[in-house]
């Protein structure tokens, strides 16, 4: 056991899983195992009318694609979707490898399940065809609440962090500011923005341990870590589930306290 402390300060490349292998008997594993058997099981209790955060930035990386498909298959309706660059991959290919047909949040508007989206980027570039979200909006079937991206992520972060409201310079003097409280600090104007929480967060990570600690990779962090903190129930799609210690303690991107259910993708899943 001395090994751990002697080397902690000097050899940071060593991961905890190495230690575990050296002296497995000294560690006990938390009995809480958040692994869920299937994507269908993981979303089965989501009711009609729920508000649902969907992680990622737009594009395939960091998007909980299999959880989204399970929610679509569940068929519940009157959903409010909260996401970032929402539903533009299908018409533009945004963030998807060329050889794949993109899948995005538009699926819930195409299926008629969603009646509202809160996002920063619902409309593809001006020369692109309409997204499913934009179509639903034109037909009067969906409300679209467009929020500046920095304000959107900060509102989500605030919900998880116990901050009910904060002031931001972004949006002052624009349509975003309409109806909002303005306040000056040091002679400059700011808007009051409020926390944004949800009933469920569907997020994506690279790896989870069985307790629910999460590790992210590359730019696939995006909205996922903040959303994990801001929903009543957080459900995570991962490429791999490992035992505690299988994620380096220095690389935990979301603490297990925030996570309710984890589902592992099938190995060799053709979707990114």
């Amino acid at each position, binding site marked *: 056991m001395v090994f751990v402390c*002697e080397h902690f300060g000097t050899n940071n490349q060593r991961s905890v*899983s190495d230690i575990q292998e050296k002296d497995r008997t000294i560690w006990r594993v*938390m009995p809480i195992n958040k692994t869920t058997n299937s994507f269908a099981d993981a979303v089965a209790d989501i009711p009609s009318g729920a508000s649902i955060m969907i992680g990622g930035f737009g594009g395939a990386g960091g998007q909980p694609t299999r959880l989204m498909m399970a929610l679509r298959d569940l068929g519940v309706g009157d959903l409010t979707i909260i996401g970032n660059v929402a539903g533009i991959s299908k018409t533009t290919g945004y963030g998807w490898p060329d050889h794949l047909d993109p899948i995005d949040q538009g699926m819930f508007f195409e299926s008629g399940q969603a009646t509202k989206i809160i996002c920063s980027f619902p409309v593809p570039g001006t020369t692109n065809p309409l997204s499913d979200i934009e179509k639903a909006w034109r037909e009067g079937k969906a409300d679209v609440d467009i929020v500046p991206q920095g304000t959107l992520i900060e509102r989500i972060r605030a919900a*998880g962090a116990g901050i009910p409201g904060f002031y931001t310079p972004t949006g002052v003097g624009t349509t975003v500011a309409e109806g909002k409280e303005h306040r000056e600090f040091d002679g400059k104007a700011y808007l009051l923005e409020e926390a944004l929480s949800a009933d469920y967060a569907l997020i994506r990570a690279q790896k989870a341990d069985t307790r629910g*600690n999460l590790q992210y990779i590359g730019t696939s962090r995006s909205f996922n870590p903040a959303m994990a903190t801001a929903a009543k129930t957080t459900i995570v799609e991962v490429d791999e589930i490992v035992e*505690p210690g299988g994620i380096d*303690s220095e690389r935990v991107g979301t603490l297990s306290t925030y996570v309710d259910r984890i589902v592992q993708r099938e190995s060799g899943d053709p979707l990114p």
Partner: protein
Amino acid sequence: MTSVHPNGNDPAPRLDRAAIAKRAARDLVDGSTVNLGIGIPTMCADFLPDGVELLYHAENGILGFKELSAPGEGDPNLMDAGGKFPKLVPGMAFFDSVESFSLIRGGHIDVTVLGALQVSHTGDLANWMIPKRGIGSIGGAMDLAANSKRVVVAMEHTARDNIAKIVDECSFPLTAPDCVDEIVTDIAVIEIDRKNDRLVLREVAPGWSCDDVQAHTEARLELDGEPGLMA
């Protein structure tokens, strides 16, 4: 501030600090994220019921620590909030103070166990400053007390000279109003029914009667069924 029982007339020995911790530990639910304050609260970790494991949070930025390093073997880069050096164990996570207090303030700590100078009959907590010193340390206490899902005070029932700590109104500066759910002391377990602003005596120490406990308590204690025996 007066001595509630100036002659110190105890009908039986009070429980020791370990026994207070053991009793407080009995209510901790498996898998909870908990923050244990310095002193008796920290000792709860040594008395968990069989099968119960907790996810320990330290506000300086660890989740999932367990026992301390042997003397002389700790590393300053792996410290707990009490300034001690835990061991590195699998499943631990490190994070900065922003994330640590987002977790606390966001209401994600299931249970905080802490010590107190005074607790009022409405669950007000005072534990950060003794007025006569003129200055005190808040640290993470206000965040933890105001925002944890459940706040348990584990402490000795009275201060030196039998001064009451469970009082009608706190005379010391508050850490947070209306926050304490349960008080575990060396002579009683008291539930704070915060909806109705009343203290309910749930358990008494062996050899202590309800009247004995009341005699050591400034705030009025109520009964809701016969109190059990602390063990």
